């Protein structure tokens, strides 16, 4: 895992007190998103999370739908590609199983705010070009290897331009039912009224995606990675560790 040093996260939407930076303590974050191989270990050890056995309350009908069967990811889900079609519940269960947790949105956004060569990626033209090039590609049927992702300033790979990722508090930003509610909606031009940087389209898209999801939803371009508090040893319940951790060594 990679240590993200303490710092700040400025929430995307303004609060009643305006846009105020939130302190984010140091934490550990997986270098790579969780892969199909990683997730296969999890479902082997936890039958209740296999595709045929998972409860519909915790994962909808498309859960692991790109896998060949319960214990075989198959052609469409190569071992070293990020696992997708996983629900928030499944991602959380996995994280707990490896002794970690999902990153909070503040943590995830703080780690992802870095550019390739500096801690502030907002004006990194290379990152922006890659981001919009990624939006310009429809989701591929078979995702590339996590190893293909570029490392950012902190050494974390694939936060952008690979898959979307679940965070612990994914739906805390906006209220999708807010037809007439004050603020808190991102529709039409009203979406811009509460936002600190209306030109930050990439963040808008992440926020919109998160707000569209329910915790049992899965999609073909949404995966996750794990975080830990600093000072906690990686390893957890996974007998042979997880592959993402292996790769980071």
């Amino acid at each position, binding site marked *: 895992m990679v240590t993200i040093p303490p710092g700040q996260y400025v929430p995307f939407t303004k609060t009643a007190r305006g846009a105020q930076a939130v302190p984010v303590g140091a934490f550990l974050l997986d270098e790579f998103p969780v892969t199909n191989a990683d997730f296969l270990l999890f479902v082997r050890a936890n039958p209740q999370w296999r595709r045929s056995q998972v409860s*519909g309350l915790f994962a909808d009908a498309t859960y692991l739908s790109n896998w060949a069967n319960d214990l075989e990811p198959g052609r469409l889900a190569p071992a070293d590609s990020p696992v997708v079609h996983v629900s*928030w519940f499944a991602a959380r269960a996995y994280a707990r199983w490896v002794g970690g947790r999902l990153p909070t949105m503040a943590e995830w956004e703080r780690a992802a705010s870095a550019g390739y060569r500096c801690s502030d990626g907002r004006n990194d033209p290379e990152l922006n070009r890659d981001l919009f*090039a990624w939006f310009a590609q429809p*989701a591929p049927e078979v995702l590339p290897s996590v190893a293909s992702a570029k490392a950012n300033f902190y050494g974390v790979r694939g936060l952008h331009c690979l898959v979307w990722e679940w965070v612990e508090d994914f*739906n805390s930003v906006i209220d999708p039912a807010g037809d007439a509610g004050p603020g808190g909606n991102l529709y039409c031009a009203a979406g811009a009224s509460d936002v600190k940087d209306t030109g930050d389209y990439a963040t*808008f898209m992440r926020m919109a995606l998160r707000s569209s999801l329910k915790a049992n939803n899965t999609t073909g371009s949404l995966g996750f990675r794990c975080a830990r508090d600093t000072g906690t040893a990686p390893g957890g319940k996974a007998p042979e560790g997880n592959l993402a951790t292996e790769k980071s060594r």
Partner: protein
Amino acid sequence: MNMKTSQNLLARLLALALLGAAVPAARAADDTLGSPEGPVVLPPDLAALPIEHAILVAPPHVPPPITRTTPAHVIVNLEVREVVKKLADGVQYTFWTFGGDVPGRFIRVREGDLVEFHLNNHPSSKLPHNIDLHAVTGPGGGAASAFTAPGHSSQFTFTALQPGLFVYHCATAPVPMHVGNGMYGLILVQPKDGMPTVDEECYVMQGEFYTTGRYGEEGLQSFDMGKALDERPPYVVFNGSVGSLVGDRALRAKVGETVRIYFGVGGPNLVSSFHIIGEILDRVYPEGALGSVEEHVQTTLVPAGGATMVEFEVKVPGTYVLVDHSLTRAFNKGALGMLKVSGPPNRAIYSGKEIDAVYLGSQADEGSAAAERETELKGKIEAEMQSNTAITGLTKEVQIEKGKQVYMGLCFACHQPDGRGLPNVFPPLAGSDFLQADHERAIRIVLKGLSGPVVVNGKAINSLMPPQEAVLTDNQIADVLTYVLNSFGNSGDPVTPDKVKAVRNEMR
């Protein structure tokens, strides 16, 4: 509400209850799960409406007119897809679409209809999407109710309270990017009292694309946020790509038909000065407001997120070019389409090119080199006029029309506008036996003039007509004689320029 929907709802409510109780850590999840309110319970009159499935068609086509005279419960199923398609030759772009094309499927309902809307976001989508229909009365135009994750489907219902032509578009943040990637279309709410019938209906929308590459740069292009913020699009196009309405894909109509174009502007930013080159719009319904009509319009301004309906009868065959008359957009960025009209020509309305001559400027000094050149050129022009099939192919009607102009500029002063002449001074042409007896003689008289006594309709006249051979061309003489031989009650064959030429040569 069908059985499946109610089961889904039940499952969601159950999930909500269970989650709230058993999974405190998922507290935040409650808010998103709890949003659907379930199918609306309709009052009996609305519940009894007949159910119809809307026919959705891809541009530039339009669903057939609605002929029923009472409201219906119309079910609309619209699918969102993110697809790579051609933006220009060699240029690809990932369009976000309502139905697979830009603009999205044309939706047609009737004022008073209850519209049950299903927005289906394809599982391969990267992003959530929704829809804001300007035809909807209610917050967001449906935006929040239709907010749909990839691989999901949303349903909401609205009553089409007001007639008109309305834009719909995706309203998910960042909206300018969703719209800028092609997420817009038109919904027509037909007025209760119906619409005038026309022969052809078509569907065109303008939108601009902010690509990273300059216009024409090959390969898959990305959305360029900087250009979008500055509103500097490399592409401004009709129906989602350069050339979408050109060549084999041009709109088509026949002479005599009335064409109606539903024209909308998706934007996201630019307005359109919509113009059809060579056509005056008989009727324009500005801003899609079907209750108000402007007539005889040349160029109509269509706002971003707005639409207009235009109607016109095509009278002359040929190609009519649709443009945004902010012309670099048409010339350099792609905002150009074509309407090809087939059928017989009507040269009285529009002749086509009659003459192509060199023009040297006026008043060359006599005897100068320029004057000599001018004389030489006049000869060439004359020859061109004789061999030009556009001219030799003149119809009698066109000759009469043009001959009238010659007559009213030259002959009427003596022969009078009504062709009756002046008794004992200038002979009549109306009903003239002298004129009608010998067309060749008439040609000679126009060329060389006439002096001395003649007998016209039994009355002797001794007068003077000046020669016109240096004033009128063979064509003009043929035209003016055809006019007088077919006016004032006269009726006769046309006089051809060849005949005049032959007589002129004989007399040299």
